[in-house]
């Protein structure tokens, strides 16, 4: 085992916390069928990053200021989600068309702004590109600690609102009849997704954060028929993917951390697809075989 520095260790823990939060929040995004909305949200953070950088320069902050960048990212990400909701609500366009349109407009504007920013003679502008695919090496221990704390907050919020999130995800109409503000509960979920996306920008990057939100939850579904366990398993797979991925990328310095983390998560997904005890392909095959056996061959004298 190579000697890892304190900084790397903190970054690993941060990536683990991020994965736990992404798995927890992602479970409800998958069940609420909002996976694509979160993809639009994460792509729409790009113009916000550039604007946050420009705002920092205007305010006289030297180099890149992480809070400014992440604030800008959150603002444009939320704007994109609101734009999707407005289009789906006030026009008769289907939601996927609204998502496609909004995602490409925001990302396009982001790419343009990014080239503008990179043309500026300001220090740190080139560093913005690391937000596309993630780069843990750029993180300081202080930043990683702060982001990890936010990730814990996001995961804990899901724990507190578990009952409400489950109700709205399963049967929104029934929730409304009982007087639950389904719109506001959805908004809280989108808020948590925004939080996870923004704190994951440095580690995983905006292009691939969707995978860390969706893959652990999708993998967890193969192991259980209960939401409580599914959320826990998704948190575990997300945390392991974040930790293992960040460690691998620290060992292979030229690898973007985001891509490695996502590949680890995908490995977990494939294993779950095959070996999952509730819905995995092998479990299904065995159950079918057993049923055939009891129904057809088991007819004794």
């Amino acid at each position, binding site marked *: 085992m190579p000697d890892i520095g304190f900084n790397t260790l903190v970054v690993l823990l941060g990536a683990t916390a991020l994965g736990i939060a992404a798995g927890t929040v992602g479970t409800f995004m998958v*069940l609420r069928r909002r996976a694509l909305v979160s993809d639009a949200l994460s792509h729409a953070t790009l113009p916000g990053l550039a604007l946050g950088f420009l705002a920092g320069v205007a305010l006289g902050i030297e180099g890149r200021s992480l809070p400014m960048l992440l604030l800008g990212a959150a603002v444009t990400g939320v704007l994109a989600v609101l734009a999707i909701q407005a289009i789906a609500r006030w026009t*008769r366009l289907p939601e996927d068309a609204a998502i496609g349109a909004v995602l490409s407009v925001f990302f396009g504007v982001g790419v343009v702004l990014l080239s503008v920013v990179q043309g500026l003679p300001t220090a740190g502008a080139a560093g913005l590109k690391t937000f596309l695919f993630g780069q843990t090496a750029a993180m300081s221990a202080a930043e990683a600690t702060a982001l990890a704390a936010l990730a814990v907050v996001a995961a804990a919020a899901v724990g*507190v*609102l578990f*009952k*409400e999130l*489950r*109700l709205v*995800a*399963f*049967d929104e*109409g*029934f*929730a*409304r*009849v*009982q*007087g*639950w*503000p389904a719109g506001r509960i959805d908004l809280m979920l989108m808020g948590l997704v925004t939080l996870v996306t923004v704190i994951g920008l440095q580690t995983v990057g905006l292009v691939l954060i969707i995978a860390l939100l969706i893959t652990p939850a999708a993998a967890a*579904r193969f192991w*259980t*028929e*209960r*939401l409580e366990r*599914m959320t826990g398993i998704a948190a575990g797979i997300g945390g392991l993917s974040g930790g293992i991925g960040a460690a691998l990328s620290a060992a292979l310095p030229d690898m973007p951390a985001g891509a490695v983390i996502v590949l680890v998560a995908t490995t977990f997904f494939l294993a779950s697809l095959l070996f999952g005890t509730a819905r995995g392909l092998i479990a299904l095959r065995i159950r079918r075989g057993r049923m055939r056996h009891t129904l057809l061959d088991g007819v004794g004298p």
Partner: protein
Amino acid sequence: MLQRLRDLDFMPPREAGVSPLVVRDLTVAYHRTPVLRRVNWTAPSSGLIAVCGPNGAGKSTLIKACLGLVRPLAGTVEVFGRPLARQRRLVGYVPQRESVDWEFPVSALDVVAMGRYGLIGWGRRVSKAHRQAAMDALDRVGLADLADRQIGQLSGGQQQRVFLARALAQEAQLYFMDEPLAGVDAATEQAVLDVLRELDAQGRTVICVHHDLQTVADTFDHVLLLNGGVVAEGSPATTLTPDNLRATYGARGQGLMG
């Protein structure tokens, strides 16, 4: 907020004679198509109520508007003498089975326990007492031994009964049910009918969308004939006349009674 709403729920004493549901000038349209025009209806305060009419008559729309799930263009809905928004706790709902994803990772008991969420309130866990209340509701529809089954592994009739049990767990005073008897097996039909009669005997109001005119008189005490507006209402014997059926269903209406 839920806490505040709950304190406001007001159930008038029976002898006050307040109707469980008063609909005034209700008009609903989807995009450019009007579905209900100026519906005025005061539900009777006792007896099982059926809402009948042809496809597209606005039956489901009427109950969704009464539940606040569809926003009307105009009109008001009053539940036990007050606006619906202040009486949520008094209203129960059994939606059509197709309205949810049955692959969702929850057990039958989990779904029935959702009927208690309004009583439990924000951020709090489902206590043992509430779980027991949900279990009792499952028992009333004859599904106590399937409590831990994932809902997708239940038959269609059993799924319908889970929804019914969830509504029972709400302990509401006014129930809306969207075709609870449509396409169910004999065991489920019996369970649903038993529950309907029990609710009626307890003095609760039940309003069902019902499609089968031939069974209306066997089960229901009151029928509302709907086709874009109220055509007729009253006891099945006086309401299901050839003239009213023609006005509701068109020329083929009379044949529907067999």
